[in-house]
């Protein structure tokens, strides 16, 4: 499968992001993203829900163009997206008979050593849920059980489908 990472973004922002990238370059300082997440989560735990839903809605729209049919391909694509956007290294294990998957993200650019006392990957949890819901149309639940933001070695998610 040919995957252009920015296809999904272009679909939502209708070419404007590409024009901006030509002018400003392709990369944004990681601090901006980390500060944003840190600030939102510091204001109120309520933003965790907003971030989860934001991630979910974004990826649900974005995934529509990708022709993915099975679970293995879905998780593989997710890991490519995480790798190419430099968000982190994603590993996964699918337990199809249990309708469950475990996802690990190492060196997560959002949460790694954030020094936060709580989980910080709500956008990513929502992103994974929305990505899979966009493909399989069912209700996908993703929750984070370990997070590098509070000192865990990696971020770990349980995906229920």
């Amino acid at each position, binding site marked *: 499968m040919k995957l252009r990472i920015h296809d999904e973004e272009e679909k939502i922002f209708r070419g404007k992001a590409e024009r901006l990238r030509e002018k400003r370059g392709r990369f944004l300082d990681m601090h901006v993203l980390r500060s944003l997440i840190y600030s939102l989560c510091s*204001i*109120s*735990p*309520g*933003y*965790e*829900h*907003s971030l*989860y*839903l934001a991630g979910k809605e974004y990826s649900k729209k974005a995934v529509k163009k990708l022709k993915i049919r099975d679970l293995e391909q879905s998780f593989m694509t997710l890991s490519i997206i995480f790798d190419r956007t430099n968000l982190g290294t994603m590993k996964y294990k699918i337990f199809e008979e249990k309708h469950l998957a475990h996802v690990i993200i190492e060196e997560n650019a959002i949460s790694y050593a954030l020094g936060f006392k*709580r*989980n910080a990957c709500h956008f990513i949890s*929502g992103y994974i849920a929305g990505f899979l819901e966009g493909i399989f149309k069912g*209700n996908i*639940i993703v*929750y*984070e*059980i*370990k*997070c590098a933001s*509070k000192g*865990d070695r990696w971020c770990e998610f349980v995906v*229920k489908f």
Partner: protein
Amino acid sequence: MQMVLNKIRTGISGLDEILQGGFPSNSIIAVFGPPGSGKSIFCMQFIDQGLKSGDSCIFLTTDRSPEEIKDIAKDFGWDLSDVIFIDDYSWRSGVESGGKYCIKDPSDLNYLNILIGDILKETRSEKKRIVIDSVSALILYNNPNFAMRFLHIIGAKARLYNSCMLITLESGVHDERAINLVNYIADGAIELDFIEGEGRRLRVLKMSRTKHDIGWKKFEFGKNGIILV
């Protein structure tokens, strides 16, 4: 006089007057508001008033650990050590809290339903107060239809056991259908808001068996909690 006897005092200075004594007994009250608007403090104050009135108080927390809630409450001079906490938060950290009731799987609403039912049966106070802070997490980590069905069942149980139940919901997070369903389940609804430069405000959107003002009222956090100004 009879009307006052059937009311559950919120403990929030100014709000009980607007509500002619407090929330109706055996009712479900939804508290809406954006993150940071003061929903959790509202709940803690409601629970503190319950303890002072001798009610049994159950607090289902999805966004903070029970220890964090007790710490925040202490800042306002509230001692919540007698509250029965259902910890639906600590599973996220992978470490179980030392509390008696700790949820291991946020998507197992059946277990949560049975657990709340058992606690309601065990508690002997004539009146009970239940807080679910927040329903938003239940909706996000579950099929929204299941979450609503769960609320409906818990609401019925709460009424059966002479309880007043407070549920919080984040504004701007859920679709209109979810908000409408919560509104349908609830007997009363209060909206909190925060406007930059103007401060915090609240309004009573609906309250069964109560004539009330629907206008916005400004409030602030005083030394002993929320005060309407």
